[in-house]
């Protein structure tokens, strides 16, 4: 408890955001994934006229509704925190964040809210096709919501399409399409959505497996497994493809994150990808001579191939990103941390001088200082940092979360392939082992989904905006005690919501579909 009370406001603010984002992310993937599955099932009903598919779709819609109701507005909590705990950040990025979040709220949420009412209340009131269209539009609305939020997050990882205005202290959007269409945003969107599809598929197979274990509603369970397995297999293959895209993007734009993901301290040409590894806890400093690994199995040259599409490409390690001197993809030479910090400090000094000049009416001087700020703005964030280690994220956490996520991804490709095979051979209903594996695989899917976000967000530390704003500059001057209080409040509120969700969901599953 003493450790908790002594933590800084930055730590508590980060912890609170992580807690609330993590809870929010329990509900969202199931909405995205189960939404598609129930829509597919309803499509089959409309095309075949088979009432069994209607009842199947309706059952999964009920579980969708439970998850949607419990999860709705959990994301708004994150926006509360921007204004209170992250006020510097909030002003700094307001023009960039404002647009995607506004579009998300107005377009996507209202699309969902409008058609979800037809989805639940409209059975027997609208035509089959209208109802089906509504179901698909609910899913589309949820997916569009995810797109705009991910555009905002992608901008944090790779800030583009903006110009910094020292008068307003805001990053002002000058190119909307650069923000909305950035390669990081596109890849992040596909990877996040397909991973949610995979989670939805794992959920359906898992719940259906429970019915098979209990020898209840077996026809319904097998029908659901048939759809979810095909959908899941396709989803996890797409996850692998988009995951490869993510690796490429991270290598290009966030080399320190990639180095942390792989526990790569010393860069090399033809770098291999670590398949399995155990980090050495004795490795404390990035530049000591201690081997970072106790053990690893590496796939030769794969990291270079994934990161640069060249099996012999040089992949910088943590030490290289800090020391600089290596050649970047655009042919220029990477700056060292010290060189970046110099430029950041130049920008900060110029900002102070700009403020002084403006207050004294020295417009020419102010214009000159503004040019210095803009010329060095790419390294603005480094001016807040002091030591080289300040730019290194938590390597063990990033490494293990990344590798767990990838292993689970590979597992699910195999899992869905095996389940599909067993289903086709009509062995699924008699294979108790596979049914239990299916049931417990739900947990694996959720863990992998959460760990992916840990990689994305812990891996970008210390940055709230890559290279431009570190967490210590982004956070408000709110007393640590205040943030700790709200942390505890949220922990209680979200735990209650989660318990409610699980309780109501289990009750409905135990009740079973209406056949």
């Amino acid at each position, binding site marked *: 408890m003493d450790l908790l009370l002594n933590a800084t406001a930055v730590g508590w603010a980060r912890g609170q955001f992580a807690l609330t984002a993590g809870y929010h992310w329990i509900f969202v993937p199931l909405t995205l994934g189960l939404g598609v599955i129930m829509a597919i099932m309803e499509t089959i009903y409309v095309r075949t006229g088979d009432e069994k598919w209607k009842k199947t779709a309706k059952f999964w819609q009920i579980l969708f509704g439970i998850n949607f109701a419990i999860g709705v507005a959990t994301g708004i909590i994150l926006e509360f925190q921007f204004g209170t705990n992250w006020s510097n950040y909030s002003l700094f990025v307001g023009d960039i964040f404002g647009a995607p979040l506004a579009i998300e709220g107005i377009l996507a949420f209202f699309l969902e809210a409008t058609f979800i009412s*037809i989805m639940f209340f409209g059975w027997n009131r609208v*035509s089959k096709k209208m109802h089906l269209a509504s179901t698909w539009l609910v899913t589309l609305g949820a997916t569009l919501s995810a797109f705009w939020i991910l555009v905002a997050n992608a901008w944090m990882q790779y800030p583009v399409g903006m110009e910094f205005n020292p008068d307003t202290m805001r990053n002002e959007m000058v190119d909307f399409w650069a923000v909305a269409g950035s390669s990081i945003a596109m890849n992040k969107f596909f990877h996040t959505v397909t991973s949610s599809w995979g989670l939805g598929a794992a959920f359906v197979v898992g719940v259906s497996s429970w019915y098979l274990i209990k020898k209840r509603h077996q026809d319904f369970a097998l029908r659901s497994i048939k759809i979810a397995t095909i959908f899941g297999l396709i989803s996890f293959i797409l996850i692998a493809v988009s995951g490869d895209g993510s690796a490429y993007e991270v290598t290009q734009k966030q080399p320190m994150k990639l180095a942390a993901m792989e526990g790569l301290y010393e860069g090399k040409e033809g770098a291999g990808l670590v398949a399995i590894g155990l980090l050495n806890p004795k490795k404390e400093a990035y530049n000591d001579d201690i081997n970072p690994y106790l053990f690893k199995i590496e796939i030769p040259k794969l990291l270079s191939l994934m990161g640069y599409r060249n099996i012999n490409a040089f992949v910088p390690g943590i030490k290289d990103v800090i020391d600089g001197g290596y050649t970047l993809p655009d042919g220029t030479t990477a700056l060292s941390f010290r060189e970046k910090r110099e430029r950041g*400090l130049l920008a900060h000094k110029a900002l102070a001088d700009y403020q002084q000049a403006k207050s004294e009416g020295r417009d020419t001087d102010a214009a000159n200082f503004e040019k210095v700020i803009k010329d060095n703005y790419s390294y603005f964030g480094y*001016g807040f940092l002091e030591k080289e280690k300040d730019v290194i994220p938590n390597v063990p956490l990033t490494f293990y979360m990344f590798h767990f996520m990838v292993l689970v991804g590979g597992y699910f490709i195999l899992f869905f392939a095996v389940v599909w095979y067993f289903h086709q051979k009509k062995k699924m209903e008699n294979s108790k082992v596979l049914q239990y594996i299916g049931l417990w695989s739900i947990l694996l899917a959720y863990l992998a989904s959460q760990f992916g976000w840990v990689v994305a967000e812990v891996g970008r530390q210390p940055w709230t905006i890559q290279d431009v704003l570190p967490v210590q*500059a982004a956070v408000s001057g709110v007393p640590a005690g205040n943030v700790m209080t709200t942390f505890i409040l949220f922990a209680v509120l979200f735990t209650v919501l989660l318990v409610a969700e699980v309780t*109501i969901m289990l009750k409905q599953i135990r009740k079973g579909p209406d056949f």
Partner: protein
Amino acid sequence: MDSAVKEETFNWFSMFWEGFTGMSKLGRTLWIIVIIKLIIMFAILRPIFFPDFLKLQVNDESEKAGYVREQMIERSSFDSGK
């Protein structure tokens, strides 16, 4: 069923009215959870625990930029001669 549905003009109000009044116990439970959650978030958490921090530091909107600028300069490594 489809032809019977087509004969009746779709009415949003009656759909909502009949939908809400005919809700199952599960539906009512979920709505109660949603309403309680929104009240807690917007009537308790937001006003009491999540004020707009910048609004509390300045007298009007135009001063927010100046405040953040001061914060950035203060937190910079250069300011403390590091």
